């Protein structure tokens, strides 16, 4: 009833091939963008920006990158934290060592460093598959943990590998206030999301999906596995690296290697799987779920215990959070193994046939 494509006739190939061929989709997306760019900055408080919005936007970008590799190309990766770290430290080196380097080129160069790193550690994927590959990508994770802690050149000779940046500005505008940070990240996210969306519906995206669904069959019909897999690693680690650089530069300001530990890799994979494998939309949902849930639990649990007149210690709180986080993830995987994106498409289908469901 509300969401219906009939009556929308396409009279040119151009109209037929646009990203959102259905008018309702275009309206919803535009509304979303308007809310994100206009309404949110009018309402959000400083805490809301720093605790939720900025992490959410950056993690969405990282999840988008991981989703290209895991969701579209089917190569399970537990090394995303390492790609983020390489992006962050790469951008840092360009930013510090070349005086006057503008922010955006530094971020892109950081992403390119991550691309190189990603291709290097993507090479095993040509021989190794599935769970073996997942463990193999952990090598990237531990290698980068060690590299940024021990090789002083990368961290500009700081002792514990902790570095910091300041005086960020884009085109002469300072990125200091929470709102400007948010808008900057959001702008980059929109560009990257558009890029990713176009890539996955193009020829290369179809190659990735063919490799994911059955790599032997894909190579039989003439898709080069090496090219497809390595390009997925390259694109994914570029996006993840950019997100890592943003996370470090904009969100953290000063950071150390532990900021990109294996825990980050796990969380990114959670985002992708809970959001929905092989869905751009899913990356956003997943990131929202994983970013907001701990904050929500942190606020909600003491209140809940207070309701029963119980005090809960800080340690007890963090353990309870761990338990609920774990249990919710398992519950979620059982109830909806295809992720939040699947719920979204189910809702769309319901809207399409309403009020006559048969």
């Amino acid at each position: 009833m509300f969401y219906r494509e009939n009556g929308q006739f396409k009279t040119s190939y151009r109209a037929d091939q646009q990203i959102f061929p259905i008018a309702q989709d275009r309206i919803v997306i535009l509304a979303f963008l308007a809310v994100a760019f206009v309404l949110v900055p009018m309402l959000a408080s400083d805490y809301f920006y720093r605790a939720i919005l900025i992490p959410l936007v950056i993690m969405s970008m990282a999840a988008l990158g991981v989703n290209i590799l895991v969701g579209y190309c089917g190569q399970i990766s537990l090394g995303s934290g390492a790609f983020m770290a390489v992006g962050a430290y790469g951008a840092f080196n360009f930013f510090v060592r070349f005086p006057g380097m503008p922010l955006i080129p530094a971020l892109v160069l950081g992403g390119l460093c991550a691309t190189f790193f990603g291709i290097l550690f993507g090479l095993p994927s040509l021989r190794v598959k599935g769970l073996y590959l997942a463990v193999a990508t952990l090598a990237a994770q531990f290698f980068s943990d060690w590299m940024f802690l021990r090789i002083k050149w990368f961290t500009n000779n700081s002792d514990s590998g902790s570095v910091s940046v300041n005086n960020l500005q884009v085109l002469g505008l300072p990125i200091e206030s929470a709102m400007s940070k948010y808008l900057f990240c959001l702008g980059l996210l929109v560009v990257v999301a558009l890029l990713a969306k176009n890539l996955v519906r193009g020829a290369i995206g179809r190659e990735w999906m063919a490799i994911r669904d059955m790599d032997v069959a894909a190579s039989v019909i003439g898709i080069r596995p090496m090219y497809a897999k390595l390009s997925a690693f390259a694109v994914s680690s570029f996006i993840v690296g950019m997100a890592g650089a943003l996370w470090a530069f904009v969100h953290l300001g000063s950071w150390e290697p532990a900021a990109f530990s294996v825990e980050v890799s796990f969380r990114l994979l959670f985002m992708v799987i809970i959001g929905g494998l092989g869905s751009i939309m899913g990356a956003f949902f997943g990131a929202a779920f994983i970013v907001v849930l701990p904050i929500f639990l942190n606020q909600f649990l003491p209140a809940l215990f207070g309701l029963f007149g119980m005090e809960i210690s800080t340690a007890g709180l963090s353990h309870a959070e761990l338990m609920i986080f774990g249990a919710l993830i398992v519950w979620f995987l059982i109830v909806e193994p295809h992720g939040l994106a699947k719920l979204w498409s189910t809702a769309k289908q319901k809207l399409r046939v309403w009020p006559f469901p048969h």
Partner: protein
Amino acid sequence: MAFFLETLIGGLMAGMLYSLVALGFVLIFKASGVFNFAQGAMVLFAALAMARFAEWIPKWTGIENMLVANLAAFIIAGAIMFVCAWVIERLVLRHLVNQEGATLLMATLGITYFMEGLGQTLFGSDIYKIDVGMPKEPVFLFESMFEGGVLVNKEDVIAAAIAAALVVLLSLFFQKTGTGRALRAVADDHQAAQSIGIPLNRIWVIVWCVAGVVALVAGMIWGSKLGVQFSLTTVALRALPVVILGGLTSVPGAIIGGLIIGVGEKLSEVYLGPFVGGGIEIWFAYVLALVFLLFRPQGLFGEKIIDRV
């Protein structure tokens, strides 16, 4: 030479301990196709249970005998692991039959978080001791052959012996008993096994139980070496390269892989470490495993992977 031998033996001992943890991974993967990330959390959980009950039992019952207390704690911890296995099968695995590997992997990560939280809520989050009376003092071997002899930790030798005994026991269990045969059948093909009347759910409970007991033994040994604390969970991450090196489906592979990784780690740390700044143990194991994988993608002893369109 003596120093080299010392490092080598130290590596072999550490390798036995890694393979003990790796064994847990292999058992569960063989029988249910689940790559169980929760093995590390299980080690921590079991070790915490054992440490705390060994502390509580003398307090509650007034029995001061350490052996009795430790034995009782071991049995109670084993029973707890059994309950865990049953609950995991009932609440998680049963609902995730036929899901993709990645989904199952994430589910075990969820279990990991849950068990870490639960273990520390129930048993506390300080550092605890497990004292099963293992001798701590080092001994010197081959004193006649080298000047000063070779320094070996007695505790390590006992731990390695326990690990070896456990492996023999498990191999016998897998090869000789009816249940073991059923387990191998399930590992080969879920559907075929089910169609000839093997109860899949019960088999899974048994496998998770066995993995729980292996985790308990691993936790006991690691715990008495390092103290029972949260960092025990990282033992699982150390054992992962062992598993993929040896092959996900092979029990002997876990042992040999453990020995190779243990020796490789120690030798690289001692002879290569000083040139690159030290601390290379962790990633060296992974890179070593990776290099092996490039030549044998199924691991050293894994079943050959055959692709069909």
